[in-house]
């Protein structure tokens, strides 16, 4: 059936998007940005008991230039916001962001002068993981949701969507 019947053994046809996304979603290299107790849950998630490597995301990089998944785990203050933004900008394309816990997602109960009310005001967020802090299973579900999301993307459209969101963040931080 199809063109594969005409090819010698060992060949398969697929869409380029499907092939690239298969590789991307199963080899995420997270950059942990732990600023609060969510980071402790994350340590548990990557350790043997919960074992994040089952989902291909166990290679943690502590340099933004070697990672493609920014895991923001904890409260981001206005003082930290420019740092987080710079870390995001240093990551090479393609890149994704998970906001873990209510503080990163919305500011949580820190509705005050010091706390950013959700990191989506400075970086584009792909998956929000609720909880205070979330259980490791919740983070894993968030990661699997991100994998499904990556699977549905085209290698062409990701960047354009991000640029729109980045403009909004730049306006807030007064970065041209």
């Amino acid at each position, binding site marked *: 059936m199809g063109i594969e019947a005409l090819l010698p053994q060992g060949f398969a046809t697929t869409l380029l998007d499907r092939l690239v996304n298969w590789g991307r979603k199963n080899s995420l290299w997270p950059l942990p940005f732990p600023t609060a107790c969510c980071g402790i849950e994350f340590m548990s998630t990557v350790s043997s008991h919960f074992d994040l490597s089952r989902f291909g995301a166990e290679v943690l990089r502590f340099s933004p230039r070697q990672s493609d998944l920014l895991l923001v785990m904890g409260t981001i203050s*206005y*003082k930290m916001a420019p740092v987080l933004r*710079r870390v995001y900008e240093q990551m090479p394309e393609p890149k994704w962001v998970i906001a873990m816990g209510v503080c990163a997602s919305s500011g949580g109960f820190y*509705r*005050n002068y*010091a706390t950013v009310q959700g990191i989506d005001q400075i970086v584009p967020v792909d998956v929000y993981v609720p909880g205070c802090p979330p259980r490791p299973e919740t983070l894993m579900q968030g990661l699997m949701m991100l994998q499904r999301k990556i699977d549905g993307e085209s290698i062409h459209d990701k960047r354009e969507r991000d640029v729109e969101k980045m403009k909004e963040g730049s306006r807030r931080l*007064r*970065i041209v």
Partner: protein
Amino acid sequence: MSSIDFLQQHHADVVISQHVEFDRNIVQIDRTRMLPVMKALQAERRFNLLIDLTCVDYLGQQKPRFTLIYELYSLPTKERLRIHLKTDDDVEIDTVSGIWRNANWLERELFDMFGIRFRNHPDLRRILCHHEFKGHALRKDYPVDKGQWCSDLEELTFTS
């Protein structure tokens, strides 16, 4: 002799009021003549720890609006003493950083959060908020959920 008696005997003109609350001696003193009293408490009464230095904003309830609270403790005598000072927006308070070194940062925190200025402080600048922050966050007239976007990266080098 307790420190209360000591203050009543040697610095009676500076003491404004004195009472006991939850077994804690609280003395309100005159802010303009507080420095010799603090020095005497440290040198003669051996209050060698400034446990905390904090402030309450009684906006609309009291005039002057701020009360500074010095929490003192003596390791040799195990005595505790709380000193209150009334102060306002437009006055300077003498720094006690020459008496207790940790007062340096505690006073910077009060400057940052309440806008209280300390006379002769060696390095009076913000300690917690970003240097682009406008206003003083713990004042009662600061909107409770007002955030401020800061674009600069803070310098991460420390100077003593």
